[in-house]
């Protein structure tokens, strides 16, 4: 499984899909978040691997 984390929310998804698909599966907009793995930014075409922990960062701010 792959763990997706955005602030205090977590999703568990099967590995093997792209980061973009994982973000969509979590019900989020891929335009509105960035994904990091092992402390590095990764592009949304990257395939997720078993036991990945992917941290999402929201890019939208108000004001």
């Amino acid at each position, binding site marked *: 499984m792959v763990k997706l984390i955005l602030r205090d929310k977590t999703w568990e998804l099967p590995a093997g899909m792209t980061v973009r698909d994982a973000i969509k599966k979590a019900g989020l*907009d891929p335009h*509105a978040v960035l994904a990091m793995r092992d402390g590095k930014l990764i*592009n949304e075409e*990257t395939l997720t691997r078993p036991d990945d922990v992917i941290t999402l960062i929201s*890019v*939208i701010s*108000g004001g």
Partner: protein
Amino acid sequence: MSVRRGMRCRKCGAPAVINMPQHKLALCEEHYLEWVPARVGQTIKRFRMFRPEDKVLVAVSGGKDSLALWDILYRLGYAAEGLYIDLGIGGGYSAESKAKVEAFAAARGGLPYRVVDVRETYGCSIPELARRSRRGAKTCSLCGLVKRHIMNRVAYEGGFAAIATGHNLDDEAAVLMQNTLHWQAGYLGRQAPVLPSTHPHLARKVKPLCLMYEREMAAYSLVRGIDYIYDECPYSVGAKTIFYKELLNQLEGRSPGAKLHFYLSFLKAKEEGTIRFAEEEAVQMQDCRRCGQPTTAGDLCAFCRLWERPEMAVCGPADEFEA
């Protein structure tokens, strides 16, 4: 399908950290860190924001856009000085954002910046001011008024050629959409990457990030290791702009580049005169007797009038006007 190689940097073929369908461009960390300042530098030149020898004041909030802007101007070699306005907002917001600014400047060998503490300077913080000003003035509009006054004052006193703010493309496109949906002709007429100075006490305002996607700025801050305040100002949570940004992102998903096109074609249509907004009538301006900034109503500007109210007696403009 064969083995996916994944997305590669267009310049060097290394794994890409960011894919930007809006530019048909994917880049690795190293080349992304080159691409962003180059694009911002082009934007500064394209809109003639300021010259290399100009002193520029960067309004820094501790958020990703303004810190990234400061970082980029510094990397491009501009004489950029920071201005942090301590609004005195509780819940740790002001304290944390100020700490981010301090740490950012220190990590770059002590970048120059000024701090204006609203409570120290005027006797009460933004939330106190909002509580005392009765007519139900919204905190955000009061805050905007106070920040504009302070930015203009610091720019005037410090002899800065321009004030640079961290507004990105998503900010601009969201405001454009909001103003278009309401046909706010006055606002539409004024929305531009550069707001020229119309009075010696009103600084020129520029937005060097106006062509940068918000996502690009967040990615730049992450890759560059800029530690910014992630939380929103507690008063702006749920701001309407976020709704328009989400709408625009849906559009962007269907048609990459839509946001950029929306904004750029608006600027182009204005420049070419295919859309025109009535010139604002030249209203009679006079100088505020207290601060010197121009005003249309009476002899005190809206900012100075704030402190005239009896409820404000406990605050009062303290040291700003003492000299």
